[in-house]
Every structure is written in C-alpha cells, then in structure tokens.
C-alpha cells in the first residue's frame, strides 16, 4: 500500500467528518432560528437573514476543511 492510498483514505474520512461538523452546526442554527421565528413571527425576516449569514460563515469554515480533503484526494500515487 502506497502512502497515497492513505491520503485518499484520509480524504474520504475527512470529507465525512467535515459534513458531520457542518451538518451539526447548520442544524443547530436552523433549529434555533425556527424556535425564534415560532416565538416571534414578526421578527421572522430578520432572523432568516441572520440565519443565512451565520450559515454562510459556518459553510466558509467548512470549505477550508473540504479544500484540504480535495488536495488529499487529488494526490497522485
């Protein structure tokens, strides 16, 4: 087994861990936002906008990890 095989394995595991983190983060965010909208429907627009921005920030951090896995996945063996 070449070291590149380990890199490809790491890329797969890394992508899985990345999606766990991002899914958990955005799930928590959406749950809280929905609770907030249910309690205060008048503030729905503002909450939704803040949610999208926060989701974008989480996504941005997630993509850093994803690019690392892409680099690992495209390694030549």
């Amino acid at each position, binding site marked *: 087994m070449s070291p590149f095989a380990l890199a490809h394995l790491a890329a797969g595991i890394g992508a899985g861990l990345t999606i766990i983190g991002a899914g958990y983060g955005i799930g928590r965010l959406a749950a809280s936002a929905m609770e907030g909208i249910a309690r205060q429907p008048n503030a729905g627009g503002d909450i939704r906008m803040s949610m999208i*921005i926060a989701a974008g920030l989480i996504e941005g951090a997630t*993509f850093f990890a994803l690019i690392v896995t892409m680099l690992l996945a495209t*390694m*030549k063996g």
Partner: protein
Amino acid sequence: MNAPLLLLTASAAAEAGRAAETAQPDPAAIVMHHVTDQPFGLIWSHHLVFFLAAAALVLVIVRIAIRGYRAGIPTGLATPVESLVLFIRDEIAEKSIGHDGRKFTPLLCSFFFFILVAALLGLVPFPILRHGHWGTLAVTSTGNIAVTAALAAISLLAQQYAGISRNGLFGHLKGLVPPGLPLWLLPVMIVIEVLGIFTKPFTLMVRLFANMLAGHMVITVLLLLIPMLAGVSAAMGIGIIPVSLSLGLFILLLELLVAFVQAYIFTMLTAIFIGMYAHPAH
C-alpha cells in the same frame, strides 16, 4: 499533487490534461479537468471567456433595464433588476452600513449582479465543437480562485476606504481596537485586529471559490458515474443513467439556490465589514 491552495487550479489543470491523454484516466484527474481552468484558443482560457461574458452580460442586462422605464415606471427586465437593486440598497447597504451606506450601493450591486450572473452562466451548458466532436461547456468564472481573490481585494479596499474616509487614518487605526481594553491585552488585540483586516476578505475569497468549485465537482462526479460504470458492464451503465441524471438535476437546482445565496452572502458580508470599519465601537 501536494500543491498549496493558490496553485490548486493551475497545477491540477496541467496534471489533469496529461492524465486525460493516457489510456486509463484517473477519475480524480477527469473531475479536476472539468472544474479547473482550461486553455480556450491561443490566448484565452475558459474562465477568462466566461468572466468577460458575465461582466458583459451584467452591463447589457442593466442597460436594457434602464431602457425599460416608461415614464418612470419599470417594464420588462427593469422590474426584477429594480427590485434587486432596491433590496440591496434598503436591506443590505442601509441596514448594515447606516445612513451613509447609500454611496456603497453601486459597489454592492456590482458584486451581487456579477457573482449572480457568473454563477448562473456556469449552470448553462453551452454547445462547443472541439477535436471534431460536439460537447458542452458549463464554466463558472468565480470557480477560479484568482477571480474571487480579485473580488475580495476590491472588498478589502472598500472596507479600508470606508474606515479611513469616515474616521481619518488615525481614527481608523484607533477604532480597530475596542476602547476600554486593559493595557496588557493591547499587544494581543492589535495583532488579532490587523490579521482580521486580511482574514475577512480571505474568507470571502475561499467561500465563493469553494462553493462554485464544489457544486460543479459534484455534478461532474455524478455524470462521470455513467461512463465509469459503463466500462464495467453495459447493464450497469444503463442502470445508473436515471439515478445519475436525477441526482445531477437535483444538484443543478441546488446550485440555482446557491448562486443567489452566495451572491447575497458576499454582498451582505462586504456591507457588514464596511459598516464595522465605518462605525467602530465607541
């Protein structure tokens, strides 16, 4: 390939090009070949063509929208463009920057419309004749880190311009650190805030680039399943076609949403950062 991030596109494209010529191409190389920049003609490249096309399309759309006004009432294309511009002015610029946010509306509109049109252009498969056979070309210029780096650099300049023009150079630098901070924290905070000037546009750059790249990568991988499984057996190749196409269509529709969300987020975060530097905590 062990290249740093900035070399990702260039070196991957070169390696993908070499791998595509060999008898048994590597799937990863094929995917990278489809999402990275490729030569187009002699002096052009795919991303350059689609970058200029997106910029020209924005100008044309806006000119048509301006001509669409009949006695001050928007008709035709002017209606959606006006509602988006009003949204950017009232909901993004004035809410995030404040009453002086109006003068940043043209810049924010340019960001929004360019990113939106560039992303939507990437979802349209353009027919292209190459090496004697027809194929399709769907390229997003914002899927190139150089393009998003340029957008982020403009955003960085706008943020610093907003701070300096409003508070003066000294006031701007003083406003970077929140007031009332213990003196021993000052060296740490100065380093963090100066780094923050550059990390803010850096995250804008990576977010847009990775979003566009990842979307096209997923579509390419899904469609690539067909020839890969067809190589194993004909029945598997035919069996995967409905799965591949329906999942690909789903991701395409998702990309439609992502195009709007990314244009909105880039514009919104730029406005928030401009507001942060224009009105530091007192």
